[in-house]
């Protein structure tokens, strides 16, 4: 198991390089002069020249890339052109908020989605199954940001139960978490259902029953662990969508997170922040994929000998 972890970690390194490469060229891909862009529109010729020198934009590309990497490793992501604060300072507190939101949404999605999928699988083609399947389909077809707006209309405008947006306590987390969780919940319910149904049709379930294992035990002890693997796959795959969704959800609810920062910096053309935010998002995603793979190996012993 340990070896598997090491191997997985090592295989992440080229991907990290690739990400940094992509981001590096992102900035260079802009039409026009990057130094000008970074300096902002109001800078003078001299200031632009200074920045060009500072950033080493007059050096060959590979040198620039090397310097870029070095700076990243030192946690230096540049300076925001809007606030003049270091990018890391802008990102750090907001990153925490986004992680909180993402975790809340994931937990919510699992707590509701997995049981729903299991129940639907154990009683297939009954009313409850139809309901679960239909709701899952709806959840996957709805744009999350629209759901958020609808929730605001219902709970904030009409019922005046919950705040419209912002932060400052658990109550502000409720609607954003539900909104963000919707798609993942639907995905999880669907995949748990189909995974469970497949597992229940397997021979070893018949064997377990032939030993006199109670049906509830059959599901818990024999079926569940086997169905987790596809479910974890789905969580891993969809977590990317979740992270992407934070951008929209945070905007709708004015949640002070990384997604909202990214949007406002795109609108303001604050490229160092854009670059930094995207880098952090990508790193988060890679990290989650690693964790998902670890969970895989825990649940399915066959994977460890990959």
């Amino acid at each position, binding site marked *: 198991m340990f070896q598997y972890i090491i191997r997985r970690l090592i295989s992440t390194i*080229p*991907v990290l390089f*690739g*990400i940094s*490469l*992509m981001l590096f060229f*992102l900035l260079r*891909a*802009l039409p026009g002069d990057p130094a000008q862009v970074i300096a902002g529109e109001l800078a003078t010729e001299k200031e632009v020249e200074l920045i060009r020198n500072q950033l080493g934009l007059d050096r060959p590309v590979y040198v620039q890339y090397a310097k870029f990497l070095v700076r990243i490793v030192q946690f230096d992501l540049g300076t925001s052109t809007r606030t003049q604060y270091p990018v890391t300072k802008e990102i750090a507190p907001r990153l925490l908020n986004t992680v909180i939101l993402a975790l809340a949404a994931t937990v919510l999605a699992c707590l509701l989605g997995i049981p729903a999928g299991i129940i639907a699988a154990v009683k297939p083609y009954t009313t409850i199954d139809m309901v679960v399947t239909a709701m899952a*389909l*709806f959840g*996957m*077809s*709805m*744009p999350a*940001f*629209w759901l958020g*707006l*609808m929730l*605001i*209309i219902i709970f*904030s*405008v009409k019922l005046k139960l919950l705040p*419209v947006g912002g932060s400052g306590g658990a109550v502000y987390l409720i609607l954003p978490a539900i909104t963000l969780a919707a798609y993942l919940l639907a995905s999880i319910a669907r995949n748990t259902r189909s995974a469970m149904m497949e597992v229940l049709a397997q021979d070893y379930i018949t064997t377990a029953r032939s030993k006199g294992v109670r049906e509830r035990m059959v599901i818990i002890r024999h079926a569940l662990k086997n169905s987790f693997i596809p479910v974890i796959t789905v969580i891993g795959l969809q977590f*990317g*969508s*979740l*992270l*992407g*969704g934070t*951008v*929209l959800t945070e*905007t*709708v609810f004015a949640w002070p997170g990384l997604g909202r920062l*990214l*949007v406002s910096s*795109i*609108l303001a*053309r604050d490229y160092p922040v*854009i670059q930094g935010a*995207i880098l952090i*998002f*990508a790193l988060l*995603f*890679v990290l989650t*994929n690693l964790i998902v793979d670890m969970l895989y190996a825990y649940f399915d012993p066959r994977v460890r000998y990959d």
Partner: protein
Amino acid sequence: MTDHPAKTAAAPESTGQEYGHWRIGLAKLLRNKAACFGAVVILIFILASFLAPVFYAKDPNAQDIRHALEPPSLQRPLGTDELGRSILMRIIYGGRISLAISISAVVLALLVGVPFGLISGYFGGKIDFIIQRVTDVMLSFPPFLLALALVSVLGVGLKNTIISVGIAGIPHTIRITRGCVLSIREQVYVEAARAVGTRDGVILFRHILPNVMVPIIVNATLFLGMAIIFAAGLGFLGVGVQPPAPEWGTMLGAGRSLLFAAPHVATFPGIAIFLVVLGFNLLGDGLRDALDPRLGYE
């Protein structure tokens, strides 16, 4: 016996069987009520998009401030927005935009993704390695963020929205195509074709491509829905299709500040998105169930 027994054995297995395959799939699909409903929804969507200028000859962007923010009424069935424009009309015209975006983006993703996936899967080796590493990197970005990043570089507007959403769909397309090619490549009839001396290009085209079609079609259908959501997301944030164009997401973005005063402005475009995407999802699922060779013939 005849000259090329292997060749004649190979062809029916991969091309002759298909026609029956498609027909059976179609029959299965028509029996799936949910999928038919989805197909109908999409048909309505497409028809409305094309026929809009015929029935609704007025300019959807024409303002009429006297009637601003009216709730739904008989004259204006879905109400008006902050500039007095009929929301119903804007939604119908917005459908044209969404249709254009989703089709173009999906076509872009397919045109780039499928060939790369085919090459990567079929030839293997160094080419496969390189393409896969690049795909890995692209996939380490959440797809919507990828689109967002591209938009921040390329700029806003319809064309860039299409490009960004299309590119965001490329890595997934490559993965799926490659996966399918890998499993087909090992089939005996491909070996047989090779053994007879068929050139790689011909093999790719005649044997592998038809069999890769099924998952590609299924995924393309599902991606059509996704593309609409992505485009709407970009529009909502203000970095997609720009106002006054009636793109659904952009309309939602405008409606956001009106939640208290006029909730209907934000509600209806979202319902439109929901219905259309639901249609694509139902159809895509139905296609998968109907055409999936693993499920066998009924």
